């Protein structure tokens, strides 16, 4: 970026070309008072506080909207300038309350700061009387319009930063105010409660309900989703009382969603936290000492043969803990029967992308989204499941990026989309291959890229024969011209990036779906460049890391195959022990079957709640009940922990050190902010103790930093990662050496497997489709306000205010036919079970489709879902099953 020079108040100043006069002054440390300018918002120029004199320009231009130019001469403190500022503030405080000392914004208020700067000590204009009722409906913040100075920062934030658009300025003149649609309270609006507007409000109009200031802050990683936002936890007297987004990183750049900002602290101090080890004695849990609990775990685990034991690791826990647990499994218990919930979300990504590209992770970075000319979001409700990535996508669209959304449901992104394809659930292969066919037929593919970088193109071409528009349109329910339009837009806007999530993977043909996205990207040369790629959005905070660490039955850390003799020898040498044979262990979906049949007798479960997340959950529960020995390590007595013989209390992210790896492969630090609550212990410590008690030498670690050093030694893609380097910020793997800067984009020169491989596909319908008996299709997903099975988020009161129970979303047309009204209690019945919940009528659900989440133990949706498995990835078909909905007579 080229530089310009200008003179401000007689001082020579350098600035980047394109900077405003305000930015140039700020960069040079010259204060210009402002009230409506914000570095994240487009220049607005409404408060007129930032006026300056510029030689050669008439009048008093506003510094925040005037571009700085070479040789400009600016004066910021002339009498005329100060007179305007003074008048602006006089007018603002004419109807502003003057209770600064007791105001919730005292010392943080920008109006106060500017008034002090200008030396204002009294009200010059007579007090006018404005009186608005305060909107206190939101559980986390209030809007008191009596303090509002109408700077519109909140409104612009909600449109420009978050893309939600819940509020705007309404009415005019004296009655002007910030309002939601219809001037309703916040809680009746579409507000997502992210608090981004609250953070930017200069005065006490939008204020958080919790306003205590922390005594110290610790930088860490959000514990909820795979975006991996960086945040500061504020601590006061041993309690976490505040959260604030960190601006100096490339992931969230200060932004947070409702869960991170308002939902990451309450569960830490929740009274139901487990604070002591529990051992079942005569059917009841008894509190015991750590010594006793650990001795018993070690002694009882010793009784089983390797093939009788299975381990469930956790995408919520750190890399170090996942590493240790798989090491415990392989090196001490002698089994490869280790897996975690990634099986249930992204195993097809790993399998499908390994086949086509050679490695199964998000190819590009979050920071790349802004560089995409076109975003194709299929099977991802990004704004709900990965909110900050959703912000980034909507911001890109605002700046001209084209957006294609393929989703059966009318999700929030649809409003921002250029094209919305409403495909039938389960028809994605047809849709994607149909788009490939159009691109090939119209010659829109990247012939040079295909020739140079890919193989097997002819096989793809012949398999496309089956996907003519007529067929594709019939299968998907999408009109032909929309398929053509989407194919053209995707193929001709370069670079184009594909994003997907569980809408693609949770199918009995999930691996095929992933392969289809890869075919489409390779066909158009959209791999290995900024703003392109295939981007599977990982759900949980550390699901990427848990996979990387080898918490999978077929790979050691770094995806080194269990089946390789050389790999086995490497780890035998590295760990100083002998390891189980080169045969993969059981996947979690098979583990439950094996436990049910009595083949698996003992299980160790860390931080997971399979009773709610597994398909056909009743069966999974029965399988756990049949175990001879079940150890559960968790922070709450989850539904699964209640079945355990021994429960070991782990700690939350705030009480331990470690690392999480986010969806874009970025390894980031988790830092201990407070000491463990009660008698709970960090999960890594617990695993080390068990390892030691079982006689292993490989668990003598002083702390997570040492564990990471061992990981780096044995995992090529993490080879250059150390806590010392992570102090300066996250690193994206592959990062093979101490000098390597990390890899923001994969496959830039060659694919991990050498050439990218096109794969022919055929359309396979979902295993269970609606019929006469079960006429509706059930699809599942997430709500913004909760996380996974709700173990953490449902302990946060404010989040339950938004969504306190399961809702069955159903199209009004279907509801009418069934005589169901909004809010009626209904019974959803499948071949495997039934669940009761309230109905919500919404056009967001297409006719014939009902939608539920899986966050609520009271309405365990996964008792309905179909355990039919993808043959390659062994993922169950959670996204499609047939149900019938009945009105529940007994309720109101």
């Amino acid at each position, binding site marked *: 970026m080229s530089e310009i020079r200008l003179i401000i108040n007689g001082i020579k100043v350098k600035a980047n070309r394109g900077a405003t006069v305000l930015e140039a002054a700020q960069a040079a440390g010259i204060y210009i008072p402002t009230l409506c300018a914000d570095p994240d918002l487009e220049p607005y120029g409404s408060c007129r506080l930032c006026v300056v004199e510029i030689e050669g320009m008439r009048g008093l231009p506003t510094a925040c909207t005037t571009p700085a130019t070479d040789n400009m001469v600016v004066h910021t403190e002339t009498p005329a300038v100060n007179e305007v500022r003074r008048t602006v503030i006089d007018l603002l405080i004419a109807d502003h309350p003057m209770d600064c000392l007791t105001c919730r914004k005292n010392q943080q208020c920008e109006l106060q700061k500017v008034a002090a700067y200008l030396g204002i000590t009294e009200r010059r204009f007579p007090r006018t009387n404005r009186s608005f009722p305060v909107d206190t409906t939101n559980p986390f913040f209030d809007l008191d319009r009596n303090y509002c100075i109408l700077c519109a920062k909140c409104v612009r934030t909600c449109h420009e930063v978050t893309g939600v*658009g*819940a*509020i705007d300025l*309404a*009415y*005019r003149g004296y009655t002007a105010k910030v309002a*939601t*649609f*219809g001037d309703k309270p916040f809680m009746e609006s579409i507000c997502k409660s992210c608090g981004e507007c609250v953070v930017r409000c200069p005065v006490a109009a939008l204020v958080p309900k919790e306003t205590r200031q922390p005594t110290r802050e610790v930088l860490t990683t959000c514990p909820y989703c795979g975006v991996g936002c960086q945040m500061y936890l504020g601590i006061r007297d041993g309690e976490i009382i505040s959260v604030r987004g960190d601006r100096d990183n490339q992931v969230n750049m200060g932004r947070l969603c409702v869960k991170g900002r308002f939902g990451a602290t309450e569960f830490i101090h929740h009274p139901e936290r487990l604070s002591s080890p529990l051992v079942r004695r005569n059917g009841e849990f008894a509190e015991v000492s750590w010594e006793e609990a650990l001795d018993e775990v070690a002694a009882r685990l010793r009784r089983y043969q390797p093939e009788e034991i299975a381990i469930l690791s956790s995408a919520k826990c750190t890399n170090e803990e996942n590493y240790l647990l798989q090491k415990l499994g392989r090196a001490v218990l002698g089994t490869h029967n280790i897996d975690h919930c990634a099986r249930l979300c992204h195993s097809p990504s790993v399998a499908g992308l390994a086949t086509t590209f050679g490695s199964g992770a998000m190819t590009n970075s979050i920071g790349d989204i802004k560089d995409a000319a076109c975003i194709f979001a299929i099977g991802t409700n990004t704004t709900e499941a990965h909110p900050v990535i959703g912000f980034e996508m909507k911001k890109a669209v605002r700046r001209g990026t084209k957006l294609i959304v393929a989703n059966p449901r009318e999700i929030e992104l649809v*409003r921002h989309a250029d094209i919305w394809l409403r495909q039938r659930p389960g028809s994605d292969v047809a849709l994607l291959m149909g788009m490939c066919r159009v691109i090939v037929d119209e010659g829109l593919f990247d012939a040079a890229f295909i020739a140079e970088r890919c193989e097997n193109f002819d096989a793809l071409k012949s398999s496309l024969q089956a996907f003519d528009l007529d067929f594709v349109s019939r299968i998907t329910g999408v009109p032909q011209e929309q398929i053509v339009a989407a194919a053209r837009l995707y193929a001709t806007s370069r670079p184009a990036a594909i994003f997907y999530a569980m809408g693609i993977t949770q199918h009995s043909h999930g691996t095929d779906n992933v392969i289809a996205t890869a075919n489409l990207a390779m066909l158009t040369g959209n791999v290995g460049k900024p703003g392109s790629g295939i981007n599977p959005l990982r759900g949980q905070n550390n699901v990427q890391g848990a996979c990387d660490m080898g918490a999978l039955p077929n790979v050691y850390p770094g995806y080194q195959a269990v089946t390789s003799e050389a790999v086995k020898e490497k780890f035998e040498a590295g760990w100083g022990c002998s390891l189980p044979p080169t045969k993969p262990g059981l996947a979690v979906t098979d583990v439950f079957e094996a436990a049910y049949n009595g083949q698996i007798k003992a299980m160790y479960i860390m931080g997971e709640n399979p009773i709610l997340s597994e398909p056909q959950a009743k069966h999974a529960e029965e399988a756990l009940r049949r175990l001879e020995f079940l150890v559960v390590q968790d922070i709450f007595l989850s539904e699964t922990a209640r079945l355990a013989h021994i429960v070991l209390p782990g700690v939350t992210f705030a009480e331990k050190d470690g690392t999480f790896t986010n969806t874009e492969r970025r390894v980031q630090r988790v830092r201990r902010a407070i000491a463990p609550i009660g008698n709970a212990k960090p999960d890594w410590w617990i695993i080390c103790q068990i390892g030691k008690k079982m006689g292993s030498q490989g668990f003598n670690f002083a702390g997570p930093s040492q564990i990471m050093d061992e990981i780096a030694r044995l995992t090529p893609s993490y080879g250059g990662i150390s806590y010392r380097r992570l102090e300066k910020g996250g690193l994206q793997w592959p990062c093979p050496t101490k000098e390597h800067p990390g890899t923001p984009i994969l496959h830039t020169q060659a694919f991990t497997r050498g050439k990218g491989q096109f794969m022919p596909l055929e359309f396979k319908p979902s295993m269970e489709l609606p019929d006469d008996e079960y006429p509706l299709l059930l699809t599942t997903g997430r709500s913004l306000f909760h996380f996974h099975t709700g173990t953490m988020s449902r302990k946060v009161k404010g989040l339950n205010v938004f969504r306190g129970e399961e809702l069955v979303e159903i199209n009004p047309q279907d509801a009418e036919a069934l005589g169901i009204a909004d809010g009626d209690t209904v019974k959803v019945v499948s071949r495997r079970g039934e669940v009761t919940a309230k109905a919500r009528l919404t056009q967001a659900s297409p006719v014939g489709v009902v939608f539920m989440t899986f966050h609520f133990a009271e309405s365990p949706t996964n008792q309905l879902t179909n355990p039919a498995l993808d043959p390659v990835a062994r993922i169950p078909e959670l996204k499609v099953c047939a149900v019938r909905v009945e009105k529940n007579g007994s309720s109101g």
Partner: protein
Amino acid sequence: MIILAETEVKDKLDEILSHHSANRDELIPILQEVQEALGYLPQEAMQKVARFLHLPESAVFGVSTFYAQFKFFPTGKKKVRLCRGTACHVRGAPHILEEVEKRLGIKPGETTDDLEYSLETIACFGSCALAPVMVVDDNVYGRMTPKKVAQILGDKKRD
């Protein structure tokens, strides 16, 4: 408050939207036509316009409330207008307004649920000599008192 049958609103809207493009510059012309056809801007209509133009609903609300020409309630059979000009104000117009609000159970800009009355305030009728002034349809009532409000509007007390 839904006054027109839902399908009626929907049909009229579909008709109006059918001859506009989904271009944001069309917002005000569309709102004007909707108001013309329905007499006011029901919330469902604003929502539908927002969806048509891919605009946030709040932005449509913001724009429509900015312009005095748009109404958000259907007008009642009888239109009560009160002056809030200076002359009327100093002679007790606020008390008159209070009384009217109490009797009709509505605020300025609103309409009673039975669609009998709507209430508005006006800057000045130009009949300052008669202050405070109230106008019901075309009948001008001068030197108003709370008592006279009762006589004019009848004794229908509402909540």
